[in-house]
Each structure stands twice: as structure tokens, then as C-alpha cells.
């Protein structure tokens, strides 16, 4: 693979071969060919927007999506290893773009978060009491799923892209070679055809990124941490009775655990653990906690796991996930820290699509028009790291957990009152707002006054009494 420093041929020859115009721009023209490696949300949305934008300017393109998996298959063979939450903001933005999630794709519409701590639980409702968060299957459900009457989210998006004119190529891309300055996907050593642009949307768990990183091209694979996902099968009514239409989030004092959630779906509950060096001891400690047990039917053992995996998630992307005729989107490039990975895939896919259609496919074009989106996400992630570190400190102190419980309970039980902490937690858990906005909301005088008042009350011994029934929206276990 060769790119980076120009060859020694004359500039004129290079420009002619590379299809540059006299301003030095590498551009897509009628008949240009694009290879998209990976048919997950990033690849499919990139293709969808490329076709949509190309139509606006009357550009005719060919797009091949290389995706060996069939998302209509159950278990790992069709899965993209993700918790399967489409955030509130993404649901709204997709609807504005004309992409409405069909009922068969949505496993459950979520309208609230239930925050569980050792000191009690509290429910945080959406401001409008509306189901605007979608729990979905990225593939077609867990291993050995039967009586399938749903559709895969990834398959839905891939079909949208194919509906716009893309062709799906069921082959594994193992590397990228170059011919006349054009990228050529290779398949187990066998060279394919050259393309005018390759968009890599293979995901952080793909071996392809390792291969590309090994080449002397300057691409650095994103830094990653391992997560743990598993699915429990329960009948629909039991899930509705015990978990309802809420996402269950846990702030537990367990070392190395940054974030934990139970996501109710149709007849499956997905468990997501994020943190550092998550091993089976941590998984067992989490599952054995009283707070998690309380979310499942009482008395019995936990239902059997029907699927589990430990996928990597991107925690820091490369500074420049692109080069001439090559761009990395979704979590192959830059994504949001811990949250809303599908939302970040949408943002990077759309920014890359707009760059290649309207500005060109050169490194300079990506520098000018794609890098900004990546930098915004990366800068926001830096703030997110600080927020999660602070959140970790809250997790470790009982009095701060009690203060959180008291303040959110009071806010939720007072209709019409300003919901300072509820909003911060909602945006943090749902990934609906940038981390910067979450941080700014913690600097509001009302937030600071409230958190100080409830922290003091949580520390003072004479305040440690049972809460008046009905006063708080949550369940308190401190008294």
C-alpha cells in the first residue's frame, strides 16, 4: 500500500493520472466508483447520503458496499456487537432526514431511565413522556432466536442504501492496495478493482484496521477498551412487568466499572458493561448485586445468557482519519466516548459524504471539510472523560450517591420545577447532548445550589431518616 509522499513523476503526469483538476482538487465525476468497506450504520448512512447529495448536483456514481455478514442471521454471524440503543437525538434527526424507524426494527421504545444505586432507585422521565429512544437488534437477535418477527437495524439501513442504488458485495476485504494512485480493496491476497474512493466503515473490531495500520501509511488504529455485552431471554410480559419501557442504569461502587445498563428489548434483556479490564469477576459482582437482582423476577436464579461478547469500543480516534481517496468513518475513525456510537456514525458518515460529493476526495478536502466534525467529537470526548472521572468519584462515595438520589427524586416529584440534575443525568446517560453541554449545565447556579444543599443534607446525621412516602419519586433504601 502506498500513499503519502508524492512519487518522482512529473506533476502534470500525476495530476492527469489522479484525476485532479487545475486547482489540484481530487474530485468525483460522473461514473466515479466508491468502495464502502462495512455495511453497518456508518457505511450504509455514508452511502445513503452520498447518493442523496449526488442526486442534488446531478452526479452519477457507483457505490459497492463490501459486507460479508448477513444481518438477517441470528447470533454473532449477523451481529455488530453493540448494545443496540438509538439515542433520542438520533431518532429525531433521522426522522427529520426522512428516515423513520419501522415498527419491526424497534424492539422497544424507551421513555425513561431508571437510575439504580445502593441507596435507592429513581426514575428520570423524558420531558415529554414520549418513547423517543429505540432499543434495536443490530443483527437479528441472539443466537438460536426463534419465531423471529422483527427486523435488524443494520439490515434496515443497508436496505436503504441499496434502495438508493448501492450494490452489496459479500466479500471480506483483507487489505487495501494501490494502483495508479487509486485504492484497490484486496480479498485474502486477491486484488480487486481500483476505486476513486474507499470509505472504511469496518468498525473497531475489524482485522482490516490492523492490516492498514501495519502499512507505512500513517493511519493509527483508535485506542480501545473492551466492554461486555450479554443477553438474557425472558418472555415479553415479564420484561414489561419488571423493566418496563425504561433503560436501567447502575451507579454501583464496583471497581473498574464506569457504566452499566440493562436494556429491555422484545423478549430479551441486553446487559452492557463499560469500564477498564472488565473480566468475569466484575461481571459476576455486577450480576450478584441486589440492585441488578431487583430488576429480574424475584426468587429465581437469573435467566440463562443466550448470547455474550466482549467487543472493543473506540475511546480515542486518530487525529486525521483520512488521506487522498481514503476516509475512515464511524468507529474506524472518530466516535463519541462511551455513548451514542450510532449517532457518531451518522455524523461522521454524513460529513464525509458531503465532503466527497461537494469538495473532493483529497486529503486537503478532508482536512478542510471533514476534520472539523472529527475534531468536534474528539474535543467533546475530552470533556466526557472528565465528566466520567467525576462520575466515578460520585459512584465511590455513599453520601454523594444519596445526594444524587435526593435531588433527582425531588426534581421528578415536582411538576413544573427546573430539573437541573435530571437533565444532566438524562443527557449523560442517553448521549443526547454533547458532553460540553452536560458540563455547562452543571455550572448553572440552580444546579450548584441544589447539589450543595442535598450533599450537606446527605452528610448531616440528623438528616439520615426515612423519607416521607410519596414525597420522593424514587425508592430510598437509606432509612
Amino acid at each position, binding site marked *: 500500500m502506498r500513499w503519502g509522499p508524492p512519487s518522482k513523476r512529473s506533476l502534470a503526469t500525476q495530476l492527469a493520472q489522479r484525476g485532479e483538476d487545475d486547482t489540484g482538487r481530487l474530485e468525483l465525476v460522473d461514473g466515479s466508483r466508491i468502495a464502502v468497506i462495512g455495511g453497518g450504520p456508518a457505511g450504509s448512512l455514508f452511502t445513503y447520503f452520498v447518493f442523496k447529495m449526488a442526486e442534488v448536483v446531478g452526479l452519477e456514481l457507483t457505490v459497492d458496499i463490501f459486507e460479508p455478514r448477513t444481518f438477517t442471521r441470528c447470533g454473532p454471524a449477523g451481529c455488530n456487537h453493540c448494545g443496540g440503543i438509538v439515542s*433520542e437525538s438520533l431518532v*429525531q434527526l433521522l*426522522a427529520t432526514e426522512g428516515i423513520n424507524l419501522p*415498527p*419491526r426494527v424497534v*424492539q422497544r421504545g424507551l421513555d425513561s431511565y431508571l437510575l439504580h444505586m445502593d441507596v435507592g432507585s429513581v426514575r428520570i422521565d423524558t420531558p415529554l413522556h*414520549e418513547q423517543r429512544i429505540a432499543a434495536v437488534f443490530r443483527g437479528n437477535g441472539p443466537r438460536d432466536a426463534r419465531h423471529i*418477527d422483527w427486523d435488524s437495524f443494520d439490515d434496515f439501513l443497508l436496505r436503504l442504501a441499496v434502495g438508493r442504488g448501492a450494490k452489496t458485495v459479500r466479500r471480506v476485504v483483507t487489505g487495501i492496495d494501490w494502483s495508479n494512485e487509486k485504492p484497490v480493496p484486496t480479498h485474502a491476497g486477491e486484488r480487486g478493482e481500483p476505486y476513486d474512493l474507499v470509505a472504511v466503515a469496518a468498525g473497531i473490531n475489524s482485522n482490516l484496521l490492523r492490516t492498514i495500520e501495519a502499512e507505512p501509511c500513517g493511519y493509527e488504529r483508535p485506542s480501545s477498551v473492551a466492554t461486555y455485552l450479554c443477553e438474557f431471554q425472558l418472555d415479553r410480559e415479564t420484561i414489561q412487568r419488571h423493566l418496563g419501557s425504561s433503560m436501567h442504569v447502575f451507579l454501583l461502587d464496583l471497581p473498574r466499572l464506569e457504566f452499566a445498563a440493562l436494556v429491555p428489548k422484545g423478549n430479551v434483556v441486553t446487559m452492557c458493561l463499560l469500564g477498564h479490564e472488565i473480566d468475569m469477576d466484575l461481571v459476576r459482582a455486577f450480576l450478584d448485586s441486589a440492585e441488578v437482582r431487583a430488576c429480574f423476577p424475584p426468587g429465581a436464579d437469573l435467566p440463562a445468557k443466550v448470547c455474550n461478547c466482549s467487543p472493543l469500543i473506540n475511546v480515542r480516534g486518530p487525529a486525521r482519519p483520512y488521506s487522498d481517496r481514503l476516509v475512515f468513518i464511524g468507529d474506524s475513525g472518530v466516535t463519541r466516548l462511551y455513548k451514542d456510537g450510532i449517532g457518531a456514525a451518522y455524523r461522521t458518515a454524513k*460529513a464525509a459524504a458531503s465532503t466527497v460529493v461537494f469538495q473532493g476526495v483529497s486529503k486537503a478536502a478532508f482536512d478542510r471539510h471533514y476534520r472539523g466534525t472529527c475534531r468536534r467529537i474528539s474535543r467533546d470526548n475530552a470533556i466526557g472523560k472528565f465528566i466520567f472521572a467525576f462520575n466515578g468519584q460520585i459512584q465511590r462515595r455513599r453520601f454523594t450517591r444519596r445526594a444524587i438520589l435526593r435531588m433527582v427524586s425531588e426534581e421528578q416529584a415536582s411538576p413544573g420545577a427546573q430539573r437541573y440534575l435530571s437533565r444532566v443525568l438524562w443527557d449523560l446517560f442517553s448521549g443526547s447532548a454533547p458532553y460540553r453541554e452536560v458540563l455547562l449545565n452543571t455550572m448553572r447556579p440552580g444546579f450548584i445550589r441544589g447539589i450543595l444543599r442535598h450533599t450537606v443534607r446527605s452528610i448531616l446525621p440528623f438528616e439520615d431518616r426515612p423519607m416521607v412516602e410519596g414525597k420522593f419519586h424514587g425508592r430510598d433504601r437509606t432509612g
Partner: protein
Amino acid sequence: MGGIVLGKVYEDGEIIVRQGDKGDCMYVIQSGDVEVVEETDGNELVLAVLKEGDFFGEMAIFEQQVRSATVRARGEARVLTVDRRTLMRRIQNDPSVAFNILHTMSHRIRVLDKELGRVKAMLAELVGEVGASSRGEK
């Protein structure tokens, strides 16, 4: 499984937005139909019937004005709310998000132009008829 539709359910006749109310969001119909009704002096005029995938209330996103018409469910309808905050934050970074809305607004202006032309032609015809009949009377 009957399928899960996102948004909020409105029963037949239930009002989703009321003419004259202040609004800070727009709506996308996820399932069912809604009707857009203008109320003048106690009389109702149905301006349009919108279907799945259509959106309404977008003017409140761009103008700080009250709702220009009432929208209510026609049969059971499920409608998704799009917040101004979410949309405007995104438009700041990616103005093309508004393209779909502009496309629909442009289409609505085209339909209104046609409607206005038709009404003008009818009025002209009526004026002509009244003029002719009054001349005939003389």
C-alpha cells in the same frame, strides 16, 4: 409482536398542537393520519390531511410565532416530537439537516401558489358573472 412505533399515541380527535399556542418543536408522523384545521370565528376549515412520514409544526422551529393552525389526530396516530434545541444544535454544525424541511416547505408553497391561483381565477369569474348580471339587469 405488532411492532413498536416510536413517539406518543394520540386518540382520534385528540389535539396535538392548538392554533394560537406557542410552540418550540416540530412533529413527524410515525403512524396514522392527522388533520390540519384553521379555526376562524368558531368555524373550522380543514387545510390538509397529513400521513405517515409527513411532518408539521416546522414553522415554530424557525419563527418565534404562535401555531398558525390546530392539528389533531384522525383515528389513532403516533407522532414523534423533534425539539428545537436538538434540531438547531445539529443545524449549526450541519445545515443540510434543514434541507428536507426546506424541501417540504417549498412543496407547500408551490401547492399554496396553485391554490391561490385557483381561488383568484374563481374570484375573477365570480366578479365577471356579477358584473354581467348587473349589466343585464340595467
